[in-house]
């Protein structure tokens, strides 16, 4: 598929990324996801994996490739019935399984909002804490190649509004594995948002299983002038921006919260205490989006330290267009972060 190619071009640039402790064993983000699921399936009989196309020859861009051969009956294709499928993982999770459901595109999750928001998010609460719903919905977001408005959306912000749902957005291969294993081990429903353009990114990935706690952010690059909180692919764009700003003597700090719920407020507050400036870079829309929600929850706490307005690098409020010329005006990248940083410093 053409956008596979696009992704390769974008995600394998020279990047100095503080990805976490490793041992020199490089793995792609996609392979790290596969390894996490392989290990979880192997260790724990309660885990199963399903989704449209998980057993085809593409294997969800390699992230589920051939797992159905190793785990017969526990990794399987499904009908195209997103809401019911989500109901199935709810029911299975309630009765002692630990299911993983994969959506090739996050757009399709809109059909399963009833089972996520009316059910998964509150089944534990409504029971007075007597039952748990330990599932993971893996969902991919992508962009470019004219995918247009129904095959590109990054809808993570919707879930931030709803108590009872955890949201994870890994930006490195190391995180992809450690966060996915932690999500599978978690006793609550976790929406796990993967960016297609990160799939071929390689970072150090330990061979053994390891868990990255949900709710712990990570400083990808430390700096003293501006704090940039970046989500998912925007972490990479921020690191590119950091490289180019360095040449102009501007030193930004890039923080990857890694999870939106729970959210590591402390790591951001500490950073802003130092820099006095905050930018939030997200691949979603601004209005009611993740960036505004993060700004809203932090503003009272960081106000004493702020030397300028909070900057936003977010999508313009329009559906995703198709034409490359329009996409150019729609998506945000390192250049936009650079200009936002300069604006903030003015």
């Amino acid at each position, binding site marked *: 598929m053409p956008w596979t190619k696009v992704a390769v071009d974008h995600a394998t640039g020279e990047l100095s990324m503080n990805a976490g402790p490793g041992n020199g064993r490089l793995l792609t983000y996609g392979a790290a996801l596969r390894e996490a699921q392989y290990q979880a399936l192997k260790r724990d009989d309660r885990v199963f994996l399903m989704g449209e196309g998980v057993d085809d020859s593409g294997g969800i861009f390699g992230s589920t490739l051939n797992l159905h051969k190793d785990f017969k009956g526990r990794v399987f294709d499904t009908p195209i019935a997103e809401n019911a499928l989500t109901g199935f993982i*709810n029911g299975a999770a309630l009765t002692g399984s630990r299911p993983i459901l994969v959506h090739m595109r996050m757009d399709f999750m809109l059909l399963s909002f009833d089972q996520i928001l009316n059910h998964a998010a509150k089944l534990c*609460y409504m029971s007075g804490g007597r039952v748990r719903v330990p599932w993971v919905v893996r969902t991919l977001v992508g962009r470019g190649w004219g995918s247009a408005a129904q095959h590109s959306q990054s809808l993570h912000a919707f879930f931030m509004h709803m108590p009872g749902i955890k949201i994870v957005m890994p930006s490195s291969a190391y995180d992809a594995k450690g966060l996915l294993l932690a999500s599978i081990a978690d006793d609550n429903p976790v929406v796990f948002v993967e960016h297609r353009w990160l799939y071929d990114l390689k970072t150090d990935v330990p061979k053994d299983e390891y868990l990255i706690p949900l709710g712990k952010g990570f400083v990808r690059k430390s700096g003293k002038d501006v704090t940039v909180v970046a989500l998912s692919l925007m972490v990479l764009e921020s690191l590119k921006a950091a490289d180019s700003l360095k040449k102009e003597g501007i030193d930004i700090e890039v923080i990857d919260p890694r999870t939106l719920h729970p959210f590591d407020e402390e790591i951001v507050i500490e950073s802003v205490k130092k820099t006095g400036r905050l930018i939030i870079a997200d691949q979603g829309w601004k209005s009611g989006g993740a960036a505004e929600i993060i700004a809203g929850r932090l503003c009272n706490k960081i106000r004493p330290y702020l030397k300028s307005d909070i900057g936003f690098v977010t999508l313009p409020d329009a559906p995703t267009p198709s034409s490359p010329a329009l996409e150019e005006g729609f998506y945000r990248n390192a250049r936009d972060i650079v200009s936002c940083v300069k604006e903030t410093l003015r």
Partner: protein
Amino acid sequence: MDNISIRQIYQTCLIIRLFEERVVALYPEQKMRTPVHLCLGQEAIAAGVCFHLKLKDYLFTTHRCHGHCIAKGVSLRAMMAEFYGKQTGLCSGKGGSMHLVDPERGIVATSAIVGGGIPLAVGAALSVKLKKEKRVVVVFFGDGAVDEGVFYESLNFAALKKLPILFVCENNFYATNSTQESRQPLDNIFERARIFGIPGFRCDGNDALKVTNLAGRLVAKVRQQKGPMLLECRTYRWKGHVGPDCDSEKGYRPKDEIDAWIRKCPLKKLEKYCLKKRILTIEGIEEIRLKLSKEIDEAVEWAQEGPLPLKADVTQNVTYGD
């Protein structure tokens, strides 16, 4: 069916009837501040189907869940306490009457979203099958749920994976105030299962023994891994969609229609049969009635005396383990 079983089914119908009547009596006090969807008139289905279930079998139900829970053995006092919003309630006051949950008795969630419980039940059946457990799943839903897409998505998958589940549709011919006629082109709910290769059956839901017999055959088949089955039981609710009142006064349903169905009372029918066949005597029935009423008295008293939850508990249990 032996006499002991018939007596047991009678007793289940009766306890549901008395429980719901007690809710009707107490509701105007406005101390049960939770919407109640009563199943008066529909008791035979819960009693007949649940008669075949074991403690560890899973049961999923709907907003109209009281009868199913009672038939599955849920504690009356914990249910009552939940209706009174008490800490001692089944769900510590977090669920109310529409979301009764009792994991020890196989009720792991109750959804009041129409159709919402159906995929939950199918997922539980998938879990059972993957773990090679010896359990069956029964899911109750109304004729309204058959309007929802998720019903068909769920049947499709249950058939595809040959899951151990019995779908039980309680067709009371109404979804709130809409008649089945105004929503569905054909009165053929049981036949709709067949397009997925699921055997579909229909029976008189006000005839407890017919329900028990047919459900018994179907549950047995499901237990023998024969795949999903569907049973449509035709019945009628006596009260309004929600609350203790009769809705003919509001003009939602014709009075003579309600009266005609009340004449087909499932409890009376069974009682008549039991007396005729000398399975029970009038004195025996009176004795059972007294005993069950006492149980309900005790449950109500216990519920009313229990403590309320603390305001501060409102954010507890949002995530599991907190």
